[in-house]
Structure formats: structure tokens, C-alpha cells
């Protein structure tokens, strides 16, 4: 009798508890944080506003085409000989933020139906660039899909960009102008304490130490190419000095020191300095410790001890055979020429620290040491293939005994 009574008293309790839990659950569900309604889910009625929103939605894809142009290239390569001479020894980075690739793509040299498909408001829109700019007759008779935009007045936070005009196929009669900036060119040099020059012979001498705290320095990842210098020539109305051979466009521009300085300053930049070159190429022991007590000066960007590298091995073994990997790290005599490759990238993203081309460097510490001589013109065993080891350059390219000298720029962004 007792147990029957307890049975009847438990069931209603369970029902009450379950009921209470259900009600609490419903209340909690009501107050739960809900996902934000998708922005612009409602299709604007005015074509101008619809156009603005489709263009906004296309930003990621437009930037992908601009910044990662190389990912759009399929075998056998782009077909637009007026813009690009596609060669196997040109690294894919050449096609990133590359106006000639942009021109080639929209001209139909990469795909037969150029266009960016944008799915928004439950519909697919096709965003396209317009050939809205006059032809560059030195290159081709085709109207251009871009124009170099030089800042002609103060108030804008950049020196140069590429003006393009976008339209949406499904919203005729409207277009918008956009400036694409060159986000592929340079890379940040972290703020920390750095060492300059070769290892000191006196063990207690720290040598020349400096730091770049409170300075925002960005260094070109590659040498300045002929294509970039052509743009500068065009802006300065020096068509007679244009290099027309498309095959040579990705190659380093060989300018006199005075022209190198003029080119860099036209973009608000400067020719790279020796202490910055060392900072960009000598890997820190601990990249997180920006104020290390002890600074080392590694002899190569990829290995502190030179003797453990192929360059060191070549010094002790006269029969050393270069491997493809060696040539990727440092293009020395005997390697095939490649441009815009990234296998030699240093700790902060700069390429071509050793080997490749002799490079012009402004040196305020030791002005006479203004040339990184390590290059593809020296054999692997050459003593010049060491970081901090520099020679003198007279600033002219056309001396009979001189090797060609490449250069790159850097920029310190004003606070």
C-alpha cells in the first residue's frame, strides 16, 4: 500500500519537473543569441544602389584576380603576346599585382569568357572590367583595362596605383572606378635590434648595432624589373627609353645609380641600404625576442655556418656538382637563370640574398661598400657568397669590366 502511494506521488513530480524544464528551455530559446541577419539580404530597388552592393560583394574576387593572378593561369599559359611572354623560368609571383596580366585576362588571353561571377540576392551577376582607357601604342593598339594612377595632389595615402573601371553585365549603364594598390611588392621589416656587417674578429666587439623601433620599413621582395621601370618611363614621357622585348620585362632593370635613386624617389621610396639588407637577410636566433642581449651575424640566410652549406662544400670540394635545390637557394655560376622565384626567401620575405644578381646598396656606415657582389657571375666556391661581404660600385652600368647591377627600393611609411 505504501509503495503504491509513493509510485503515484513520483510521476506527477516528474511531470512537473519536465514541464518546468520545458518552459525554461522555451524561454531560454527565446532569449538565445541569434545569428545576425545577413547584411543587404534585401535586394535594393534602385539600380545605382544594387550596383554599389554587387560591386562591394565582388571585392574579394576582384582582389584575387589582381593579387593572385598566377592562380588563373592554366597550361599552356596566357595567350597575349603584346602583354606577356610566358616563359618557364619566370616565377609565378611575376603575375601578381601585374597590370599586364590584368590586361591579358580581360582581353581574353587567359580564358575565352573573362568575368567574375558574383552570387548575391539570390542571383548571379557578372562583374567585368571595361576597356575604358586609351591604348598604349608603344605596346599595342588595344584599349587598356587599366591606367597608372599617379597621385597628383596631397591628401591620398599612396603614391601610385592602377585605375580600373568595373561594370556589372546585368545592370547596364553603370560603372565605377577603383584604384588597385600594389600589395605584392614589398614586405615589412619587423621592429627590433639588428646587426650590420660581417662577424667581428674581436670576440667582445659587438660591431655596428642599430634598431628600427618606431619605424615602419617595407622592403621590395624582388629586384626592380624592366616592366616596373617601363611604367616609370611612361609616366615621365620617355617612350624612347622603353624596353619593348616582353621576354626581358621580368628581368632586373639595369640602371645607373642616379636613375635607381630617381626611380625609387618617384614612388616616395629609397634605394635599399646595406644595414637594411643585412637586417632582412640575417635570420634572428629568436624572432620573438626583439631586444636580444646577443646578436649573431649568420653567413647565409638559411644556415648560420657557411661551411655546412653547398657554398662551403664547394670551397673544399673542387668537383662539387650543383643541385637544383642549391640553385633555388642561391643562383651562382652554373645555375639556370630564373626570375621572380621565392625559394630563396629570407626570414622576413625578401628574395635573392645571395647569388642571383649583384645588387646596389646605399651604405651610410661604410660608403665604399655599396655592392652586394655575390651573384650568378661567381662560382659557388667564391668568397663573395657570404652575408655582410660587400664590394664597391662606381654607379655606372656600362663600364666594360662591370657586371650588371640590379637594385630594389624600400619605403619608410611616415608616421
Amino acid at each position, binding site marked *: 500500500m505504501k509503495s503504491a502511494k509513493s509510485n503515484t506521488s513520483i510521476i506527477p513530480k516528474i511531470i512537473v519537473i519536465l514541464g518546468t524544464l520545458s518552459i525554461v528551455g522555451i524561454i531560454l530559446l527565446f532569449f538565445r543569441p541569434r545569428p545576425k541577419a545577413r547584411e543587404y539580404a534585401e535586394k535594393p530597388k534602385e539600380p545605382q544602389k544594387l550596383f554599389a552592393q554587387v560591386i562591394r560583394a565582388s571585392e574579394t574576387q576582384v582582389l584575387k584576380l589582381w593579387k593572385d593572378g598566377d592562380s588563373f593561369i592554366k597550361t599552356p599559359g596566357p595567350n597575349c603576346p603584346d602583354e606577356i611572354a610566358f616563359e618557364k623560368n619566370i616565377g609565378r609571383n611575376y603575375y601578381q599585382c601585374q597590370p599586364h596580366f590584368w590586361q591579358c585576362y580581360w582581353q581574353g588571353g587567359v580564358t575565352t569568357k573573362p568575368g567574375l561571377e558574383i552570387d548575391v540576392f539570390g542571383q548571379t551577376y557578372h562583374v567585368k572590367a571595361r576597356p575604358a582607357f586609351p591604348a598604349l601604342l608603344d605596346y599595342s593598339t588595344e584599349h587598356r583595362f587599366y591606367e597608372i594612377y599617379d597621385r597628383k595632389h596631397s591628401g591620398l595615402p599612396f603614391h601610385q596605383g592602377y585605375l580600373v573601371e568595373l561594370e556589372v553585365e546585368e545592370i547596364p549603364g553603370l560603372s565605377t572606378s577603383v584604384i588597385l594598390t600594389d600589395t605584392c611588392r614589398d614586405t615589412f621589416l619587423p621592429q627590433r635590434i639588428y646587426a650590420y656587417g660581417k662577424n667581428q674578429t674581436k670576440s667582445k666587439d659587438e660591431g655596428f648595432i642599430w634598431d628600427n623601433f618606431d619605424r615602419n620599413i617595407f622592403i621590395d621582395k624582388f629586384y626592380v624589373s624592366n616592366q616596373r621601370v617601363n611604367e616609370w618611363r611612361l609616366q615621365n614621357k620617355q617612350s624612347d627609353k622603353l624596353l619593348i622585348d616582353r621576354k626581358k620585362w621580368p628581368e632586373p632593370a639595369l640602371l645607373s645609380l642616379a636613375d635607381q635613386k630617381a626611380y625609387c624617389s618617384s614612388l616616395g621610396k629609397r634605394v635599399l641600404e646595406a644595414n637594411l639588407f643585412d637586417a632582412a637577410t640575417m635570420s634572428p636566433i629568436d624572432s620573438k625576442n626583439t631586444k636580444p642581449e646577443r646578436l649573431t651575424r649568420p653567413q647565409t640566410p638559411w644556415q648560420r655556418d657557411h661551411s655546412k652549406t653547398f657554398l662551403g662544400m664547394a670551397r673544399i670540394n673542387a668537383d662539387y656538382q650543383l643541385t637544383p635545390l642549391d640553385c633555388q637557394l642561391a643562383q651562382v655560376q652554373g645555375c639556370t637563370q630564373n626570375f621572380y622565384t621565392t625559394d630563396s626567401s629570407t626570414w622576413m620575405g625578401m628574395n635573392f640574398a645571395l647569388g642571383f644578381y649583384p645588387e646596389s646598396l646605399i651604405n651610410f656606415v661604410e660608403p665604399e661598400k655599396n655592392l652586394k657582389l655575390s651573384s650568378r657571375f661567381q662560382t659557388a666556391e667564391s668568397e663573395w657568397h657570404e652575408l655582410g661581404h660587400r664590394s664597391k660600385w662606381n654607379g655606372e652600368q656600362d663600364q666594360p669590366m662591370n657586371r650588371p647591377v640590379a637594385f630594389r627600393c624600400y619605403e619608410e611609411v*611616415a608616421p
Partner: protein
Amino acid sequence: MIALYFMLFSSLVFADPTLRWTSAVDVVERHEFYNDHEVIVKPKDTWQTLFGVTFLDGRGILAKDCLYFRIPGKTPGVLRMRTISATESCEKYIFDDSIEKWENIKTLEFSVTPERISLSMQFPDYKSKKWDIPRLNLKPNIKPELNMSSAEFRSGLMIFLSSVIVENQPKPVAPETGKKLCHAISDDCQELSPSTCGTCAKGWYEIPNGCSQGPKYCGVLECGKKHQPACRRGYVWQRLNKKFDCNQDSSFAYCSKGLVIQCHGAEAFCL
């Protein structure tokens, strides 16, 4: 030419500010007393500058829309908009007439965020007008880091221009080509005026003075040479955590081999 024609045509068709403000570069001269989404009620019957919007017009010239509001009181409110050069002040034109005007306003509120500009007007006949404008040219407010490019750090990846051509603008100020002071810093490290060095046509140079920022000038100058400013070496590598006095310790600067530092006040030069 085709582009110019098209842009001119566009400027006639779309006088609505909502279209050009999508390419806003900055919102300036914002009224300091009016909060976001707060109905503006005082001081009644006076003209107030609400804010200015700088934007790039179709030719890539920086222009500014100024928004003025006469607050409703004895008479209904009026909103006026005037486009001026970005270098001018909105305040200068507060009592001048404007081409674009919205009258008979009962209430007005606005808000400005880094992502959008919104403005809402109510009229007596229960009609309303609402602007809700996404800002496509988001100003990057980021710290530079490894693998970041200067363009990304400074201006963002893509800059939208307005479809509008602003006519009759004063000639835009050209980038500074002379050796003009662009960042004034006193000997005791005080910033006397904000940096305008980003507007220098050919870059800028700094004279090290032992501070985190030294005075800067537009132009090209190679440091470390005889009778030229010394080069900046930094003030952290010494690991001293002190303020540097050029005459006592000039290790924050250096000259080319064979030259010595000479101090002019706090500034370091080479001799």
C-alpha cells in the same frame, strides 16, 4: 575620353550623396556634441555643421561634402549639403547657400561608424528619408606585421572612387616637392604638429634627435655625409632606457666612417 564622358553623365544622374559616400575616405569635422542615433533638438533655430565627408571623385580628386542642419524650432528644420575642396573647412560655408537642400524636417538623427554613415529624417506628413551608406574605403587601422605590404598597411587593398565628378573645385594641392618641414618635433620630443610627410612627392628624411620621432622634411637627402644630418641609429639598441641628450650621448645617430657627430641643439649632424 570615353571614361570621362561616362563619368560626367553619371554625375548628372546621381546627385544623391548616398552614392558618393560609399567611396568616403574619412569623416571629418564631426559635431562634438551630437551622439550617434540621438535626435538633434538644440540649439533651436540655429545652423550647425553636422560633419564633413571626404571622398575621391571620379577623377581621383579628393573632395568634401559638408552637411549643415538648421535645427527645428519656430520653423521646421533644413538640411543643406555643399561640396567643397577637401583642403577647406566646412565652417567657412555654414551660412552660404547650397545646391542640395532638404526642407520641412521634423526630426533628424545620424550616426558615423568606421563601417557606415547613417542619417534619418522625419517629415510632418509621416514621410521619412533614410540614408544608410556602407563605407567601401575602410581606413585600415592596423599595426604592421611580418609579411604585410606597405600598400596594405597604408591605404588598404582597393580604393573606390565616386561616380561623381565634382566641378569647380579649387586646384588641388600638389604633393610637396620642396624641402619643407612635414613633422615638427621639438628638442624635448614634443610633437608640435602632426606628420604630413605622407604628402611629400618624393619621400622625406629625418634629423635624429634622440626621440622616438625626430623632425622630418620632405625631399631626398642622404644622411651621414659631411655637413648633412646624421643617420638614425635608434634609441633601444643601447638597452639604456633613457632620454638621449645629443651633447652627452649621441649614440642614437651615426655618420659615415671618418666623420664625427656635431650637435645643433638636440639634432645630430655630421662633420
